[in-house]
């Protein structure tokens, strides 16, 4: 399908006069704290490439963007993804209605670390925990653009599978996950399935507001295990039909859900208030056997509230912003929340300092602290600056501190000890 679209769109891109392009090539190196495990790769050294091409005229717009990475040390990280690959056209001379078709990357977030409302695209889970890379979703979209805001209607006919780290990755689960499966009602593994929704966005006074209602295959709360299992009366419990696959290559299952949610960004002088919220109702016709027993998806709510405050004083001409953000899952027990994700009830405290110098130097420090589960923290330090108009360098340190407390790791515990430093050298063009 993607190749067909590529064959259709690429000639348009090359022939068009009103097109622009940009891209980057990055050398990325990371080194993890040694875990004394020969089965994992503590060093990563990769080449990352992103290309973007845009054609635009009065009525039409066509965007292609994708990235690829090749890791010299861990071939499981080799990956190529389509982010945007769509054609859009105004339906009327007034340019009030816009139709779009193709693969598209959405960003519905209002907050910095916790994203209850930003759920459309599948993620590459071998990337930053707070900002996973997204994969384009096949989309048919119609948007009404009005002076007061916009209304969009979506159909997503195909479930795009997420990308997981391999068994050698320090950011993975120590095993190779099987191909992710979508569950729609009692159907398992169907990639082509009806998904759709609507979103309205508008500006109210000094705030930006949006609401959405979507029905789609969830991308953030997989249940990992197997759907093929039986009850063993001798053992008195459920057992997988294929024990080897269950233990070494379990399958992440994504359930279809209906989600209603919204976002808010509001400016009070130097303070920005950000909110995201959503409530999810899952189709739970199928149960999954996991290492923690038989499970079904749990209906729940999720909210995130954030504050961003720009200090009114400048330090040596630079700007400093403070971030405070909290996110929680509601309508579940503490144990259920822990199974749902890494950030089930957490607080982020961060500071960003832009030096406002010619080279755009910037320092960012943050800590994410779990306020419900003991001793779970993620520290992040990063610094970036330009070397020229085309080159940029960045370095960072991430510390995962989340000791395993039960028999099996849950949430952030699976990343405990995956401390690493990273250096990126980017060439933009």
């Amino acid at each position, binding site marked *: 399908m993607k190749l067909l679209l590529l064959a259709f769109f690429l000639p348009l891109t090359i022939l068009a006069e009103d097109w622009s392009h940009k891209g*980057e090539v990055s050398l990325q190196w990371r080194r993890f704290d040694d875990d004394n495990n020969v089965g994992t790769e503590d060093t990563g050294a990769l080449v990352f490439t992103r290309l973007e091409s845009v054609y635009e005229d009065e009525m039409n717009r066509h965007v292609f963007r994708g990235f690829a990475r090749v890791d010299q040390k861990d071939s499981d990280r080799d990956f190529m993804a389509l982010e945007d690959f769509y054609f859009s056209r105004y339906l009327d001379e007034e340019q009030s209605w816009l139709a779009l078709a193709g693969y598209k990357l959405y960003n519905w977030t209002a907050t910095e670390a916790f994203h209850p409302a930003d759920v459309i695209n599948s993620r590459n889970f071998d990337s930053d925990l707070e900002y996973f890379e997204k994969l384009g979703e096949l989309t048919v979209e119609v948007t009404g653009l009005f002076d007061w805001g916009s209304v969009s209607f979506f159909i997503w006919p195909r479930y795009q599978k997420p990308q997981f780290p391999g068994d050698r990755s320090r950011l993975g689960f120590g095993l190779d996950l099987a191909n992710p499966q979508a569950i729609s009602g009692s159907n398992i593994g169907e990639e082509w399935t009806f998904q759709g929704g609507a979103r309205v966005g508008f*500006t109210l006074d000094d705030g930006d507001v949006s609401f959405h209602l979507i029905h789609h295959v969830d991308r953030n709360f997989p249940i990992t295990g197997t759907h093929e299992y039986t009850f063993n009366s001798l053992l008195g419990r459920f057992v997988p039909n294929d024990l080897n696959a269950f233990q070494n290559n379990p399958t992440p299952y994504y359930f279809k859900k209906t989600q209603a949610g919204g976002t808010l960004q509001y400016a009070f002088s130097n303070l920005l208030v950000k909110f995201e919220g959503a409530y999810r109702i899952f189709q739970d016709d199928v149960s999954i056997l996991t290492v923690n027993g038989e499970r079904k998806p749990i209906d729940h709510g999720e909210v995130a509230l954030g504050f961003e405050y720009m200090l009114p004083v400048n330090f040596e*001409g630079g700007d400093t912003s403070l971030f405070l953000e909290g996110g929680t899952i509601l309508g579940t027990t503490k144990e259920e929340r822990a199974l749902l994700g890494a950030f089930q009830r957490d607080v982020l405290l961060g500071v960003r300092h832009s030096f406002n110098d010619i080279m755009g130097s910037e320092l960012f420090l943050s800590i994410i602290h779990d306020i419900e589960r003991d001793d779970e923290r993620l520290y992040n330090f990063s610094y970036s600056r330009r070397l020229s108009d085309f080159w940029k360098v960045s370095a960072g340190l991430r510390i995962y501190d989340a000791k395993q407390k039960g028999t099996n790791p849950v949430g952030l515990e699976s990343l405990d000890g995956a401390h690493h430093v990273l250096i990126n050298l980017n060439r*933009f063009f």
Partner: protein
Amino acid sequence: MKNWLLSSLLIVATTFTPSATFAASPEEKGLDIAKKMEASNNGFVGEESQMKMILIDAYGAKTTRLMKGLVKEVQGDGDKSISIFENPQDVKGTKMLTHSHKNDDDDQWLYLPTFRRVKRISSSNKSSSFMGSEFSYEDLGSQEVDKYKFKWMKDITLEGGQKGWLLERVPKTKSGYSKMLMKISSQYMNPVEVEYYDRKNELLKVAKFTDFKNFKVAGKSMWRANKIHMKNVQTKKESIFEWSGRKLGVKHKDRDFNKNALKR
């Protein structure tokens, strides 16, 4: 035609010559000049241009930023503008949308193309540097008359023999400056030099406006400086803002200055 021309010249002469400002106090006279300056620059409808910003550090090293600028004039409130960054390459495609207001903080949004994200940003810290330059957001933002107190200091003769005025401008709301001293050209009805004083009332920066070009929009004549040279006298850094391909009278659609339009 001759009558019309004569009438026009008479109106211009009585309106824009320094001696024509008969307001009673220096404050009233200053406000009168500021309002005339604003009136003479209004009516441009919309603008688009290519912008180049040259940053010069204290040792003379230079670097260049490129942008595209779009402005839509709004009657009764501040203007709406979009800056599209083209260089340096890591921020290429980044867009900043500003809805300026006469009596309120501006609304600002930033479009981050890497993340396909539109983010509302705080616009109240106006003294922040714009892209590492010696220009602050306040310098480049709306200069609505209602946001300042004015005081006429004296009539002056500018370089080249032009007549003009020296005005003191004091911000009414939160600002990075305690005051500005502006040399206004009566011909261009625009500042040709501005001295910016910091909150300690010490001279911070001096901006010189040059390369004035005349535009006609719907029969109305107006001037725009195509170059501003800003020198920070405290840090010895300099920045030069240059406009090229500037068009006035461009009719932009209102919804092109909506935050939803940034993603397009």
